[in-house]
């Protein structure tokens, strides 16, 4: 339809360059021999070796991965329930409060969430003696709370698209609600649950402010280590770490891009097949269609000439 790129296309290209240039520069300079980050002194992979030897960073990576895994897993369970409540149940008392509490964490500034959760944990420790000390458990609770909000948005948008009539048919045939959910709804929303899990996992890995508030001396996550070293200035080791993160994320993105594209290609092929099928129907039907097409043509032409 369109031949030459318009204004918005140029902005899109500029915007993408803006998004990717800084990361590209980080990747290039992670292979820099020199400690001075901005002066190129030859290719070297020594910063990667130093990174892997850094026990503090490696320990923090492991802590972050564990917290991320368990936070994402709990968040999708809560989010699936919440999304089901939001999309399938009719109004109940407290539904407005429920939906507010689901969406509010999406935009709540991190410093407020972190501060308020820490004060809750302190108050709980004082009154009921639990949690006795802050660490991985308290970070997990905090992460589950905000990840649930994001995962609910992802899962509920898929849940809305699921054909309700299949669920209703299953129930009409006598399947109890839970069985209907397990056999019909769950398989249909599984991709969205996977997407919600991945989103929660990355959000949990990425969080600095909330973790800093609710963590104790026992648990240091990766962003906390990175932040304290970055605050002092630029270190090539962090460039190497950044490159590894960018590489891992790009790989995951490429795989999902490939899967989505294949799915799309299959959909297009299916549509073509359908068109081909209808065209190979018997002669009389084709004649009727041809007549209809001829009859329609003048009208269409009339419209197009008017616009141009």
């Amino acid at each position: 339809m369109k031949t030459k790129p318009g204004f918005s296309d140029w902005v899109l290209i500029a915007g993408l360059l803006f998004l990717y240039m800084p990361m590209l520069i980080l990747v290039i300079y992670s292979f820099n021999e020199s400690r001075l980050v901005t002066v190129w002194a030859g290719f070297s992979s020594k910063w990667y070796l130093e990174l892997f030897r850094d026990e503090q960073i490696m320990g923090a990576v492991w802590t972050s991965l564990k917290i991320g895994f368990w936070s994402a897993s709990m968040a999708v369970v809560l989010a699936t329930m919440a999304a089901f409540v939001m999309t399938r149940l009719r109004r109940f008392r407290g539904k407005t409060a429920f939906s507010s509490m689901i969406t509010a964490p999406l935009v709540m500034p991190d410093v407020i969430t972190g501060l308020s959760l820490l004060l809750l944990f302190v108050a709980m420790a004082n009154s009921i003696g639990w949690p006795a000390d802050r660490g991985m458990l308290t970070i997990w609770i905090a992460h589950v709370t905000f990840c649930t909000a994001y995962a609910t948005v992802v899962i509920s948008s898929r849940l809305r698209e699921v054909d309700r009539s299949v669920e209703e048919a299953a129930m009409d045939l006598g399947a109890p609600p839970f069985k209907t959910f397990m056999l019909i709804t769950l398989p249909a929303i599984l991709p969205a649950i996977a997407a919600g899990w991945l989103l929660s996992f990355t959000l949990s890995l990425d969080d600095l402010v909330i973790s800093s508030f609710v963590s104790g001396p026992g648990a240091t996550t990766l962003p906390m280590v990175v932040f304290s070293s970055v605050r002092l200035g630029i270190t090539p080791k962090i460039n190497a770490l950044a490159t590894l993160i960018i590489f891992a994320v790009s790989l995951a993105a490429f795989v999902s891009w490939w899967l989505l594209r294949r799915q799309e290609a299959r959909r297009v092929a299916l549509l073509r097949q359908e068109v081909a099928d209808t065209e190979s129907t018997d002669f009389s039907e084709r004649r009727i269609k041809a007549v209809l097409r001829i009859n329609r043509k003048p009208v269409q032409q009339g419209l197009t000439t008017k616009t141009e």
Partner: protein
Amino acid sequence: MKWLSLLANKRLLIGIPYLWLLLFFLMPFVIVLKISFAEMAIAIPPYTRLFEYVDESLNIALNIGNYLFLAEDDLYVNAYISSITIAFNSTLLCLLLGYPMAYAMSKASRQMQITLLLLILLPSWTSFLIRIYAWMGILKNNGLINNLLMSLGVIDSPLIMMNTNFAVYIGIVYAYLPFMVLPLYANLIKHDASLLEASADLGAKPWKTFLTVTLPLSRNGVIAGSMLVFIPSVGEFVIPELLGGPDTLMIGGVLWQEFFGNRDWPVASALAIVMLILLILPMALFHHYQSQELEGRYEN
């Protein structure tokens, strides 16, 4: 499996996420509100109790001193004003850059849209901290931009970009741009193309069609994107801390300093409560849009 089928019970289905959110989302705010009325004390935890049983009677010591303190001190008032100004300008910049991007995406072919969507999403999956860190190497005095400009002979002495509000703007726009583009794209993609054709058929020029049809229809997307950028930017801590300078005053940093530096929990709580009150209107706007999305009701 038997215990799992219990979850199908409607009460449990609502109850479990509800309780979690009540306990770990709503309760914390009640406690912040409570502590904001307490006084700082040298104790563990470092604040006074509001309710005390003395001689079998309940003493309630409500102390609004923290709020008066915030209103009297220029530092806090200025921090709020400058946070909101910086967040507002950044949101505007994101909108100006993000709208054409989302528009171009929505006009691309379906195959291309998937690629573009992933390209927009990919940066937000990598570490936020590291993306801000990347700008430190670019903007600093002996950083890439200055080195490049000086070797080309455009400038003699380095431009001071790092540790200024300029760097903070770059950081916020860079970090939050995907949050602007995605809701806008999700909105623009739903528009009925026949409306544009109708407008063109009736003789409207493309820019007039855009102003009278596309822009009003995308109102919800603009609101959602703007709120997703504006609200977190107001409380932003990491970006001003890493890219900002001594002149950059933002409420997130002040709160952090008050809590971790001065260990004044009551004042930090009062700061948080005032920030929440300032953000209530934008949050309500966002919630209005988001709950429509959640429940699948659309205006257009």
